[in-house]
């Protein structure tokens, strides 16, 4: 009888777990900050909606001619260290420092010029306030100059599926082996797409 009760309780717990929403967001998740991102197609989505898959995040702006193209190049290099199925298991997010000029059209044009795979890449802008908040949260520094250009630090940041920063690198222009290894670990931890 006792056993039966226990089994019943266990079953009830299982059902409840299935019904309830996913576990609470960890306190050290960047998704704790509400940020609305508008992408290269003009779609607006909360950044927290990216929860569930690892994310490679960086910040840039489209009119930047110096380091930013190399940031994109470095992300692509890092991605290509994975085999084709593994490349499907994480997303890439690049948020603009320059929401005034990087509107939807500018982001779309940049994606086209750089031939970015929009299955993998999201280029986004948000409000000036949220841009500053997001940079602060990610530990990225930037400063607008009087001529409209930006001084900024260049970093690639790896988030786990719950939005925790698990790795970062400021090595740009070549692969950072430690960062690549962290990405491989995150992707290995993810179930293949399409399976429950």
């Amino acid at each position, binding site marked *: 009888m006792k056993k039966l009760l226990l089994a019943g309780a266990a079953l009830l717990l299982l059902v409840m777990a299935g019904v309830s929403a996913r576990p609470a967001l960890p306190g050290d998740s960047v998704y704790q900050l509400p940020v609305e991102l508008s992408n290269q197609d003009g779609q607006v989505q909360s950044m927290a909606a990216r929860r569930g898959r690892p994310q490679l995040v960086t910040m840039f702006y489209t009119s930047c001619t110096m380091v930013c193209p190399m940031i994109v190049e470095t992300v692509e290099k890092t991605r290509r260290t994975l085999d084709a199925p593994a490349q499907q298991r994480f997303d890439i997010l690049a948020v603009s420092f320059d929401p005034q000029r990087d509107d939807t059209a500018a982001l779309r044009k940049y994606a086209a010029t750089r031939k970015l795979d929009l299955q993998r890449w999201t280029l986004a802008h948000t409000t000036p306030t949220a841009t500053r908040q997001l940079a602060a949260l990610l530990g990225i520094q930037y*400063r607008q100059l009087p001529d409209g250009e930006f*001084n900024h*630090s260049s970093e690639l940041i790896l988030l786990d599926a719950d939005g925790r920063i698990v790795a970062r690198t400021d090595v740009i222009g070549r692969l950072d082996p430690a960062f690549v290894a962290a990405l491989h670990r995150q992707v290995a931890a993810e179930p293949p797409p399409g399976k429950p």
Partner: protein
Amino acid sequence: MARRPPRWLRLAGWLCLPLMATGGMPVALAADERYAALPGGEFASVLPADGKAAPAQVAPFHLRTTPVTNAEFLAFVTAHPQWQRGRVAGVLADAGYLSHWVGPTALGAAALPQQPVTRVSWFAAQAYCETEGARLPTWYEWEYAAAADATRSDARADPAWRERVLRWYGRPSNTALPAVGGEANVYGVRDLNGLVWEWVDDFNALLVGVDSRDQDGADKLRFCGAGAISMQEKENYATLMRVAMLSALKAANTTNNLGFRCAKPL
């Protein structure tokens, strides 16, 4: 002779007067006594706008006359429980957040109502300012306002002013903070120098690229743009110390002597 309006209308008119005095004006023009208007203009900041020598351009703005107090911040966390100690997410405020308060919604002996609130993160300070329809001041706004003394809009060239400002930095950080409401400067703003360190909106933008001159070729790539920012007004140690301290912070950090005030566009 014009006909007098009926008595009920005259009465209603009287009743409406105080309402019309504030409610009839656009909200932006309604005076908020907590804020003073500052004219702005060209300003020689310790941080040149272009990283070389260009002066900063400060648009006219409103600045809170005093830093936000414990009592004011208590009212804020009471109305917005997500900002209470113990509830706020670790990425938005570190473990020291409001830790000198006796409880999540109680000040206690170590936090007097009129003392400036400290141990608040940049995110929390920003959220507070939003509730006043405001934001954190930019570094240039703060530095510009703090350059004034009681009679001059820019007292920085005066060695006596520098000496006075510097003296505060020598004060031990474990002594109890005075209440807000020190001497007003020429704009009517108080406590900019000599009470607490204060968050600014762009704290993480102040020294971008400052070290890039000393780095090797590969590391230069970490910074995109015009390159190194050089500091001006090198004799103004006190202000330079503030820049250095703010630059060392992360947005979730809290410290014993770090508070904030808010600003609004004019």
